[in-house]
């Protein structure tokens, strides 16, 4: 029996369970347990709590919130179920206290029963979460060619900023158009901020949030965007245009300069004139033809005509026994004619002195090629064999040796002969007779050797010649005289012996015809010697008729005498 009752009890329980299940499945039940989701205080003055109701059990269920608070007796109900929406409870300022704990419960009730939620413990201090900042404005500003973003906002709605009850701290984040990364900045308590590192030509988005004291952060505000302008690009274009335009004239100027560089060079760097000597042609010098150069260099210089003495080659006398000796070869060489003055006294008895200097002179004379053929010839002719060797004339006791030497003409006869003649001079020197004396010591501008002859008056002894003083017309070498040298022919007055010729004194008179060059003294003589016997001042050119002596050319003494 007991087993049956037990079984009946179990069955009854099972039936009850089934019934309750059936009842439940018919959605008629007490409400489910609501759940308090949380509370939030936006400004530390009010707060709101929300709950989640449980199942309503098929019946109309109501929810009520009850709270207990520290330092407050009793259980109180939510003062405001509506303001915050459904399933919420709004605690206004009068019902909000801070730094006190709240114990909240929600009771769901319907006809079938009540259900109470768990206790939710909270302090207002912990649930502070402000609203989002308001009126976020974004501006692109420019300062000294720098772009920056100016972000400005307002404090969240209903938040006290005047009493210091709350201290709001802000935070913002910025995002460029293309990227997904936000860059965050802390603003502190300021409600504006300037962002400087921005790029032109992009879209920027900005969001702001805030926090009270050290509570929770608010939600981000709605994104505000702005486009930054593209200024530098425009500026770049502008400058590119400007540079292009300015480059064109520049290039043309350069082209012109390059094409006309020679002209430019001349204009800028004119050639420096070189030194110039008047009368000198540089080109001429460079080419280097000597005659032209010399002609160019020499300016109107007139030299005296060459060698007047050349024109006045006297005819020379060749005196010989055999007659006139024409020595054509010698005549060619002859440059100088022998002139024997009228007062010439050929005394062949005079011994020549000092053969050695004479010898030297002879050699010198050789070198000089001055020929005194006439004299030599004369000597030879006079001495008749003794004159085979050329006797140098005896040097005068007086003056110059050299002039005599010049007269010591070497003919074309061999020098050896001369030398030999020199050796043998002692003897035949006795026969040589003319003496050269330079009479005229006055400056007569004698280029050439002044030669004077004195008449030998007398020979005393071997060495001494006594010369006649007087107006012996010494003769000058023709070379020095430009003027017409009067030529005179002296008549041979007398011939004494073998060696002596006495000449007649004559006046100076010119006979130009006698100055013929060359050998044609015969011409001269022809002209003059018409009157061989004319005495006196008339000119007589004794030529060929002289016996043992040719005619003697005389040059009368210059007027200075």
């Amino acid at each position, binding site marked *: 029996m007991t087993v049956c009752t037990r079984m009946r009890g179990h069955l009854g329980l099972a039936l009850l369970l089934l019934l309750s299940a059936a009842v439940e499945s018919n959605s008629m039940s007490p409400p489910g347990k609501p759940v308090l989701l949380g509370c939030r205080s936006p400004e530390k003055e009010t707060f709101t709590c929300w709950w989640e109701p449980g199942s309503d059990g098929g019946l109309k269920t109501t929810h009520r919130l009850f709270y207990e608070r520290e330092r407050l007796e009793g259980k109180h109900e939510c003062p405001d179920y509506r303001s915050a929406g459904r399933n919420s409870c709004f605690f206004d300022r009068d019902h909000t206290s801070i730094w006190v704990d709240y114990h909240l419960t929600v009771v769901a009730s319907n006809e079938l029963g009540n259900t109470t939620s768990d206790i939710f413990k909270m302090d207002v201090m912990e649930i502070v979460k402000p609203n989002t900042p308001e009126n976020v404005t974004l501006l692109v500003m420019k300062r000294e060619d720098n772009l920056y973003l100016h972000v400005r906002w307002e404090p969240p709605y209903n938040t006290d900023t*005047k009493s210091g009850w709350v201290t709001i701290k802000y935070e913002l984040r910025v995002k460029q158009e293309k990227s997904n990364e936000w860059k965050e900045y802390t603003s502190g308590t300021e409600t504006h901020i300037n962002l400087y590192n921005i790029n032109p030509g992009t879209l920027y988005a900005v969001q702001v949030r805030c926090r009270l004291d050290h509570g929770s952060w608010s939600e981000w505000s709605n994104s505000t965007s702005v486009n930054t302008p593209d200024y530098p690009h425009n500026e770049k274009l502008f400058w590119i245009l400007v540079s292009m335009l300015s480059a064109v004239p520049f290039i043309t100027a350069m082209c012109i300069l390059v094409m006309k560089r020679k002209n430019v060079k001349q204009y800028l760097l004119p050639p420096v004139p070189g030194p110039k000597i008047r009368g000198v042609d540089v080109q001429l010098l460079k080419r280097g033809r000597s005659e032209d150069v010399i002609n160019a260099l020499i300016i109107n210089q007139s030299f005296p005509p060459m060698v007047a003495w050349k024109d006045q080659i006297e005819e020379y006398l060749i005196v010989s026994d055999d007659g006139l000796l024409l020595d054509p070869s010698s005549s060619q060489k002859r440059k100088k004619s022998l002139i024997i003055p009228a007062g010439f006294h050929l005394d062949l008895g005079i011994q020549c002195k000092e053969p050695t200097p004479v010898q030297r002179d002879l050699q010198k004379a050789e070198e000089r090629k001055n020929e005194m053929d006439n004299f030599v010839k004369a000597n030879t002719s006079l001495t008749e064999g003794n004159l085979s060797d050329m006797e140098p004339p005896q040097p005068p006791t007086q003056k110059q040796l050299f002039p005599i030497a010049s007269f010591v003409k070497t003919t074309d006869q061999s020098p050896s002969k001369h030398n030999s003649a020199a050796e043998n001079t002692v003897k035949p020197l006795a026969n040589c007779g003319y003496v050269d004396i330079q009479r005229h010591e006055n400056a007569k501008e004698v280029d050439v050797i002044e030669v004077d002859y004195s008449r030998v008056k007398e020979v005393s002894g071997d060495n001494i010649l006594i010369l006649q003083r007087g107006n012996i017309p010494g003769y000058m070498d023709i070379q020095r005289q430009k003027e017409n040298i009067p030529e005179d022919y002296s008549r041979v007055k007398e011939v004494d012996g073998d060696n002596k010729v006495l000449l007649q004194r004559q006046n100076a008179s010119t006979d130009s015809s006698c100055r013929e060059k060359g050998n044609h003294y015969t011409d001269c003589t022809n002209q003059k010697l018409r009157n061989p016997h004319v005495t006196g001042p008339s000119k007589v050119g004794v030529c060929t008729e002289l016996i043992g002596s040719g005619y003697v050319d005389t040059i009368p003494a210059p007027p200075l005498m």
Partner: protein
Amino acid sequence: MEAKWTKRMKKRTRKRSDDQQIRSKRKAMAHRRTSGSKLLMTVLYMVASCSAVPISDLLDRASQGSDKLHSLSTTLTQVLDSHFPPIGRVITPRPSTCHTSSLHTPNDKAQALQVSESDLLSLARSLLAAWVDPLVVLSASVNTLPHPAQSSISNKIQELQQHSKSLGDGLDIISGKMGPAAQAISTLPYRGGNDIGQDKISKLINFHFLMSCFRRDSHKIDSFLKVLRCRAAKMQPEMC
């Protein structure tokens, strides 16, 4: 006549020179005086300016300190919450049992704004003074705290102590400026003893409870000081 005239002239010149001398002397003296007085004035001004730091600046500095204090306590409680036994939420003591709860403080904005500045400062100072001892206990017991972030907690406790000390000193200076009413401090003795618990869980729970009390009190201090700052800087709305 001439003699007279010359005499007069002489007198005049003498007088003139005398006058000039006197004038120059006076000038020198005046100059010295003015320079001396100027110097004195500048010295006084400097002294006055150096000593007369405006109270708003002091309060600003103090509120910065209290802000720092509160942030430290907040992070500490969050750290402790991360490793908190679920049962602790059940058996944790009620905040009314904080040792500072006996102090009557304003509980909302309206009340807080009605409190006078000196009272506010006194409250702040009292609260701050009440936590000197508990912080010592906490710093002593943090070494044995069975918490994974025990070292960072230990550092933070030390920081808390330092900031609390410096803030207390600053508030003393401010109270000196605000008058005798601000000087009164309510003593709130800590009666928790020298250790916070024997076993792990009680240690954790007690630690957590104390920190939550401290967090509340630091928030109170911070709020009061910021209200005071705003009130002191009437010409500077950005302080509020």
